[in-house]
């Protein structure tokens, strides 16, 4: 188990009883809270790339104004 996996597991344990949080949300929040700012930034950039929304010209294709 990697260091990151352990940290995510610790956060999952910590937030498991939080009211109104569904299982998929639990993992999403645990992963985000366990990460460092650099990891969070990298994930955000990867998400934008994977959705083809990382440049202004690519976003325009989908109707974004900026």
């Amino acid at each position: 188990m990697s260091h990151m996996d352990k940290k995510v597991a610790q956060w999952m344990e910590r937030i498991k009883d939080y009211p109104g949080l569904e299982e998929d949300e639990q993992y999403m929040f645990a992963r985000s809270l366990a990460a460092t700012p650099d990891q969070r930034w990298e994930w955000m950039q990867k998400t934008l790339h994977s959705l083809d929304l990382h440049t202004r010209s690519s976003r325009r294709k989908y109707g974004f104004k900026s």
Partner: protein
Amino acid sequence: MGAAALQGVPVVTLDTDIWVNLNSRQYMRVMNLCLQDGATMLSKTVVELKDGHLVNFLYEVHGINGFAYEYGRAEKIKWLGLEIRVLPLRRILKSKQFILRDKDLAHIHLLEKTLGLQNQKKPANKRKKR
């Protein structure tokens, strides 16, 4: 919401807001620095950096105190090898609750949830029985 994302809010944002301690009439001072670095000016406050990233410069932030007050209480975080200051999640939330645009409603929900989760107590350490 860039600052919120860096502090653990699971959100993706298309641009990064940077609060500048200048009067908005002095926006060209900021723009000239960006232009010197190869950025493209899209409006008085928005530039597209060479890598395609959008940056929006703010000269005031509604719903919270002034720059000096907030800067002194900002969170220091390490990001891409730099130490930067970001508005704490509570202050971002306060500003969004004040502005309350349609898009802020979703952000408010995520900010409140993240703050709530951060306040959850850590489970007690399990000690091995001897």
